[in-house]
């Protein structure tokens, strides 16, 4: 039996440190790994942006700004991009940052086992020009490349080799799964996966500190009521997200402030375009009404988005007509109008399509993925029922949801999409293009929506350097998707953060929380 005691630990605890700059925050999901290349998910990348840095980064308004690269320019006529690296940067362990690390991080992040591999799909080669200059060669001209690698984080090659973590290991984990060594403004000093992660400012950071915190602690709190209680009681300084319904109450509370924004995530309904028949209908068993564009239009007209926003979202979200929000690059302002809520027109369209009495079908919905997803689906069920579309709602946890969608077990489904590149091309690639394994497109197009013109436009959009020409093609695609009602985009999910009143921080539209913009008063 071990019985030795960490006296120092006890003493440290018994004499609480009197530092007002201790900052504690809570999120729903713990970053599952500390490896920046292992998992491409918002909780991981958002957190690691405090610890690791990329060649470029996004500012408070999402603009691409220099980070480990001080400047960059296209090479020749769209053959690639040249990045000039920042000098005098050191990793947390003291190692110096050089072009070697950039190449290593490219190799690591673009490996088959890396989840970030798709970022480098356009890249044909990476060439070290000198210690502080690196060229990224692309197969086609790629105008948005610098912005698309803003979350690609640079790891020290020497550290990775020394700790045998030259490749990420999702399945078994390795040194980098728990340990970090970035160049960022904060370094991880304690990591207890799923419980807490403690950070401290990195003294050797190259940038100017805009924060005043001396220590920060992240705790995942899953139950929203508990998280809110923790904020209200002052046990934490910041929670993300705040349950929508509590926004109004929190605003009245002088101890707490609510910071709201519009997230990039568009919530939409999807259809089984390819299916022969409905799966969950009690009477319409030999055909698929959703293959008819009029039926899809009817759905769009049946849904009263303003009512959803008014009640369930409590006026904290904005409606949207296309697959990206207005904050994204490539948003089509002239197509901003949503189909009006018009039950009569919906009924007329259904009659026209041959379903004057409507039909029954199954609506699948996650219940722990998006803000109030289940409640929204319930409301949609009610609205559709009013025009004769009798949906049976099946709401389930997200771990069951994706397999269901992949198995085509739905007649209609709810989906949220947040473009990782902040560009309209992203949803076109994943949601609108005809699914094609080889070309790596349409991987989230569960319904198999297919339009030859969209498929034709996508590669052109991807390689067009001229912003005007590119936007014209996006306009056209957006128009097609709207006309055909490929999806029914409804609203943009709101960002709602809750902070104690003595905290100042910055909310970035991608829902990333950066410690370097936090001030404790």
């Amino acid at each position, binding site marked *: 039996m071990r019985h030795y005691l960490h006296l120092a630990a006890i003493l440290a605890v018994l004499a609480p440190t009197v530092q007002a700059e201790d900052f504690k925050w809570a999120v729903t999901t713990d970053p599952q790994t500390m490896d920046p290349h292992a998992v491409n998910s918002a909780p991981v990348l958002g957190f690691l942006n405090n610890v690791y840095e990329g060649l470029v980064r996004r500012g408070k308004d999402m603009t691409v700004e220099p980070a480990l690269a001080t400047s960059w320019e296209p090479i020749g006529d769209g053959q690639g991009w040249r990045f000039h690296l920042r000098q005098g940067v050191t990793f947390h362990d003291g190692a110096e940052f050089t072009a070697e690390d950039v190449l290593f991080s490219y190799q690591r992040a673009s490996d088959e086992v890396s989840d970030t591999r798709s970022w480098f799909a356009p890249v044909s080669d990476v060439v070290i020009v000198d210690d502080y200059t690196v060229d990224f060669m692309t197969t086609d001209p790629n105008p948005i490349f610098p912005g698309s690698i803003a979350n690609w984080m640079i790891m020290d090659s020497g550290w990775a080799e020394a700790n045998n973590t030259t490749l990420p290991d999702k399945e078994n984990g390795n040194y980098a799964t728990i340990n970090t060594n970035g160049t960022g403004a904060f370094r991880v000093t304690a990591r207890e996966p799923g419980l807490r992660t403690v950070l401290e400012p990195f003294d050797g950071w190259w940038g100017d500190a805009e924060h005043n915190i001396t220590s920060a602690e992240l705790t995942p709190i899953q139950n929203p009521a508990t998280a809110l209680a923790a904020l209200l009681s002052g046990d934490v300084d910041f929670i993300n997200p705040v349950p929508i319904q509590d926004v109004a109450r929190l605003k009245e509370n002088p101890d707490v402030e609510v910071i709201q924004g519009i997230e990039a995530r568009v919530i939409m309904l999807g259809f089984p375009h390819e299916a022969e028949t409905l799966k969950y209908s009690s009477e319409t068993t030999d055909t698929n009404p959703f293959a008819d564009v009029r039926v899809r239009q009817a759905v769009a007209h049946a849904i009263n988005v303003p009512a959803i926003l008014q009640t369930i979202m409590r006026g904290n979200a904005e409606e949207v007509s296309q697959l990206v929000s207005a904050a994204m690059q490539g948003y089509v302002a002239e197509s901003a109008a949503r189909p009006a809520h018009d039950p009569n027109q919906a009924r007329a369209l259904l009659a026209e399509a041959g379903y004057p009495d409507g039909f029954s079908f*199954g609506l699948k919905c996650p219940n722990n993925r998006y803000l109030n997803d289940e409640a929204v689906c319930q409301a949609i*069920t009610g609205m559709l029922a009013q025009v004769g579309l009798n949906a049976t*709602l099946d709401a389930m946890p997200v771990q069951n949801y994706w397999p269901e969608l992949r198995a085509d077990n739905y007649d209609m489904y709810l989906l949220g999409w947040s473009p990782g590149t902040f560009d309209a091309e992203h949803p076109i690639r994943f949601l609108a293009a005809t699914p094609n394994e080889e070309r790596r497109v349409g991987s989230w197009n569960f319904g198999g929506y297919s339009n030859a013109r969209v498929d034709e436009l996508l590669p052109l959009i991807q390689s067009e350097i001229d912003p005007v020409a590119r936007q014209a093609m996006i306009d056209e695609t957006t128009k097609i998707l709207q006309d055909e009602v490929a999806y029914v985009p409804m609203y943009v999910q709101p960002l709602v953060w809750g902070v104690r009143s003595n905290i100042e921080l910055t909310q970035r539209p991608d829902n990333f929380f950066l410690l370097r913009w936090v001030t404790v008063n």
Partner: protein
Amino acid sequence: MSDFPIPVKPQSRLRIALDSDLFYTFRRSPVAMVSAAVVLVLMFSAIFAPLIAPTNPFNPASLNLMNGFTPPMTPNAFTGDSFLLGTDDQGRDVFSTILYGMRISLFVGVAAVFFAMVLGITLGLISGYVGGWTETIIMRTADVQLTFPSILVAMLIFGIAKGVTPVEYRDQMAIWVLILAIGLSDWVQFARVVRGATLVEKNKEYVQAARLIGRTPGAIMLRHILPNVLSPVLVIATISLALAIIAEATLSFLGVGAPPTQPSLGTLIRIGQGFLFSGEWWILLFPAITLLALALSVNLLGDWLRDALNPRLR
């Protein structure tokens, strides 16, 4: 006192019931009477919910989302509609939802307990009467079952049932799966009690006599042993009912409960707890009070029944 000679004279069933000691102690216990009244009123309103409830919250077409979050007895800001107990996030009348939700809770609870009871009594009778390997297998299974916490059992069953049910039927399955899950996690105590009582009864003279005159084991178990073990079973059943209703609520909290479009009381509470801090207290409070009243009354009745059916404690 139990050895006082008791005269046997023919009486009508009602007369027997009214004259019984059970009814007598019932009349003497205000707690029992109040609880019974509460349970009866709640059961009645649940059964006749479609007649009592002002709206049908399970019919999505009848809902107006703009009625959402209307406080009790206050006109809605947009629609001007007013509701006795207010509305929830979907604009459903809380009063109606409680009535319909109680229907589901009671149905799940009663059906689950009934299922557990039938299963437990059957297995208990068999293992007690037959003995040998049959008994060993049944009672070891019971041990395995006890080894597993009931909510975990329920979660496992829920998971498996979701998996094996054909997708077309999955939506209607939720309720039945709940019944199965709660019932299966609850049969052991019935089986144990019945087995114990069977072991005692089967050696009594009347059972020996029945066996001697050639009654089949099935008939002996049903006609002779079963009636003698019913009173402890009844007590367990009552308390299990309350537990089943709570278990359903807990499962709902863990995300494996009744579907939100047809919420049970537990689901209502799960939904309502999300509005505890936001000021819409009525969405949580009224279902919670109803559940409390229901479970408390059933428990109190079970308590009373246990004491009343145990003549030695009287």
